[in-house]
């Protein structure tokens, strides 16, 4: 089976390991990923903060290219890209005039019909029933599933799980043998796009998240978003300085955890690229 694939910028740079683990896992599961030709950046928080039409046009171009290539379903592992693409599709589907305007800005026809899946949705749809048979080494650790903002909100657009205390990732983790803990910061914001411009805020917000996970006995934090990952993993100095202590809990992508359980090797999953060393497996 082949699915369209939008890696997004982070997955080609600072979050390469996410892309690597997604690809490795899909390979293992017999899913072929085909990149959208000549894709561009979704604009992320910056476009969204600065100009509404730009923030709609950049994702619209991506979706239009996917349509042009005949894709009906695309996988978008980055939660930020996923949110931007989904919101754009939703907003344009609500407003035909705006849709026409955006189509003229990007200079391409745009229908808005491509189905957008995040990694969790993709796994739920195409992999869940295959997982049990393929597990080689259950990931039997206490994990704190961290959803962040972009996967669950706004609910009316994303229709993903319940807004408070979501469960989908917990269920998935349990399926590969992990023990998801009950904790309070599942959907609190990590500081998102302030990573560079407001590192102190990121240190504080991410610090609270990491601390709660550690306090409640998690051995790893599981994420499905490169922004969450870089804030929780790379920004450890800021986090540690906010918490006034050093915390060494590793942060893993869902795909890495499942990959480990399926026996994929750590290099293929990009684990060595983490700042906080991952000592499992």
């Amino acid at each position, binding site marked *: 089976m082949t699915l369209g694939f939008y890696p997004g910028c982070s997955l080609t740079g600072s979050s390469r390991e996410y892309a690597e683990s997604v690809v490795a896992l899909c390979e293992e599961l017999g899913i072929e990923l085909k990149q959208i030709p000549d894709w561009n950046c979704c604009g992320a928080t910056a476009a969204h903060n600065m100009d509404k039409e730009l923030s709609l046009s950049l994702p619209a171009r991506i979706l239009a290219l996917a349509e042009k290539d005949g894709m009906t379903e695309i996988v978008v592992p980055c939660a930020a890209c996923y949110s931007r693409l989904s919101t754009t599709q939703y907003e344009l589907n609500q407003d035909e005039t705006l849709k026409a305007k955006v189509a003229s800005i990007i200079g391409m026809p745009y229908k808005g019909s491509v189905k957008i899946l995040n990694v969790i949705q993709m796994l739920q749809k195409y992999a869940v029933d295959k997982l049990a048979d393929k597990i080689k080494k259950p990931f039997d650790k206490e994990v704190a599933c961290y959803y962040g903002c972009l996967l669950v909100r706004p609910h009316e657009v994303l229709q993903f799980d*319940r*807004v*408070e*205390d979501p469960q989908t990732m917990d269920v998935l983790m349990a399926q590969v043998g992990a023990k998801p803990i*009950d904790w*309070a910061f599942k959907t609190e914001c990590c500081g998102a796009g302030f990573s560079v411009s407001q590192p102190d805020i990121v240190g504080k917000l991410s610090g609270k998240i990491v601390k*709660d996970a550690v*306090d409640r006995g998690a051995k790893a934090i599981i994420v499905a978003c490169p922004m969450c990952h870089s804030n929780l993993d790379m920004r450890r100095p800021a986090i540690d300085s906010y918490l006034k202590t050093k915390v060494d809990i590793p942060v893993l992508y869902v795909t890495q955890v499942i990959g480990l359980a399926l026996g994929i090797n750590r290099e293929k999953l990009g684990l060595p690229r983490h700042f906080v060393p991952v000592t499992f497996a």
Partner: protein
Amino acid sequence: MSRIGVFVCHCGENISSTVDVEKVAQTAAGFDGVAYSVDYKYMCSDPGQSLIKQAIKDHNLTGVVVSACSPRMHEPTFRKACAEAGLNGYMCEMTNLREHCSWVHERTEETTEKAIDLVRMLVEKVKNDKPLEPIKVPIFKTALVIGGGIAGIQTSLDIANCGHKVILVEKEPSIGGHMSQLSETFPTLDCSQCILTPRMVEVAQHPNITLYTYSELESLEGYIGNFKAKIRKKAKSVDHSVCTGCGDCWTKCPSKKIPSEFNAGLDNRTAIYVPFPQAVPNKPVIDKDHCTYYQKGKCRLCEKNCKPGAIHFDLEDEIIEVEVGGIVVTTGFDVKGTDFFPEYGYGKYKDVITGLQFERLASASGPTLGEIKRPSDGKVPEKIVFIACAGSRDPAKGIDYCSKICCMYTAKHAMLYQHKVHTGKSYVFYMDIRAGGKNYEEFVRRAIEEDKVNYVRGRVSTVYEKNGKLIVKGADTLMNGQPVEIEADMVVLATAGVANCGSEELAQKLHVSYDRYKFFAEAHPKLKPVETNTAGIFLAGACQAPKDIPETVGMASGAAAKVAALFSQDELKREPLIAVVNRQMPPTFSSCVGCFLCETACPYRAIEREEIKDRAGNVIKTIAKVNDGLCQGCGTCVAFCRTKSIDIQGFTNEQMYSEVMALLND
């Protein structure tokens, strides 16, 4: 041939100063069918009335038009006078020469002309009048009260004390409702049970009250004065006439893990149980859904232990039929649980409780004997947070309206907490304090000033558990929205008061309306607060909207007075100004074609269906029939009927058309 009398009143000078009354009387004398016409100074006075009576006799009048003041003032007076003279009262009509003519116009020719027109209209109407008899409906002087909370208890006692029979139906094993669960009550802080229990006992012992607990209304037919109600008495599995209430059964029952409804889930009860020690009746029932014997076919320990032999597992539901004249609905309300508010803990933190649970904690008869201890570990909370409007005034997740009672009970809870835990600290997060009632504001001020409850104006965003504490994240909007975080030991949510889950179904059984929140609808928000739109069915208490005890009791007595007023007559005499469906000779029977547009139009569900059968019993035709107990005479059906088969007595098509024609053809 009509022989109409016209009586023109001067009303002192009220009419005659602007209307040439002599001319009106003279002109009227010339109208077709008028046999007698006269003017007089005061028609409503005794001599005036005698004049009319005399004229009826002397001139053999078949109809009377009194041209005087508003019929809203004196129509009954003149109809009565006519009846005394042997003329059917409904053959008398009034022309409103005072309010609608002399008082609103100057003395001009036009004014007198208008008066003449008005008289002509009514003369023509009277020609089409038919003698009518008041409708007499017998009244069955027993009241049915549905719901045994404080509203039902008060209504039942008031009606019973007027000397009428009352049947009180309660779906739970005991009466008492929510009030029996309360600790102390605002604004006086008297003990709820202490004031309620005597009334519960009084209900049980009152010779005029028949109490059916563990029972529900099955169906209802009929109309004011003449309802037939079927009541389902659910099988109790215990013969209460034999049971002594000794308790040997429930102490032995092995099925002990059933969350107690009375204690709002804070502790457990057995399968055979009495809901609380002061229950009325104080005899157990078996909850079949949780009894091991009913579910698995084994146990019967209670039966073994019951010395009098009161337990019978084969008892079945029983349906009885009663006849009642009036009904009072007093089914109360429910409180929303905490589970609909995920950000406050999904009902997953044991120490996040509802206001009702707090009542049980604070109650001397509750699971902690009145000590405030938190459910998780029994510790006395040192810091407690109360969250007002939890689900109320929240279109997004809860309900739009204000639940009205929670501001007050939250103040009470904080106060009770401070009284019981002197070193404790309490916080109330609120949006507005709604304390409109006698001594209510003073009560809230006392909580703040004397008991040092910290009121913070702002809604809480989230509550989560951390190291055995509940972290409450709020904001202080009086400090520009500054975030406030409190580490509490316990959180109490003032969850919304909502309609009972079965209220919609009950409303449909009763044919009464309910609002969009499924509370029962009163007939008029100001002037008929205890009536429903269905004659003979009344409301009291929190089944109409959330309300506190004083209001509930006031309303209950009001409803009882309405029932007593209804029962003060032997027959209900009603104006015959109601709709009728015409009847004709066979084979037509009626011009009604059975479209039942009238049925859809009638706001009172007064249109029934009547089958016309031949001798062999085959249905030839189904036509509309008006239930004269239900019809209020609005006439909506008449306007709807395309075949002009239904008409309203006193305002028939003939009458209305003749008025219009008389008016326009002078």
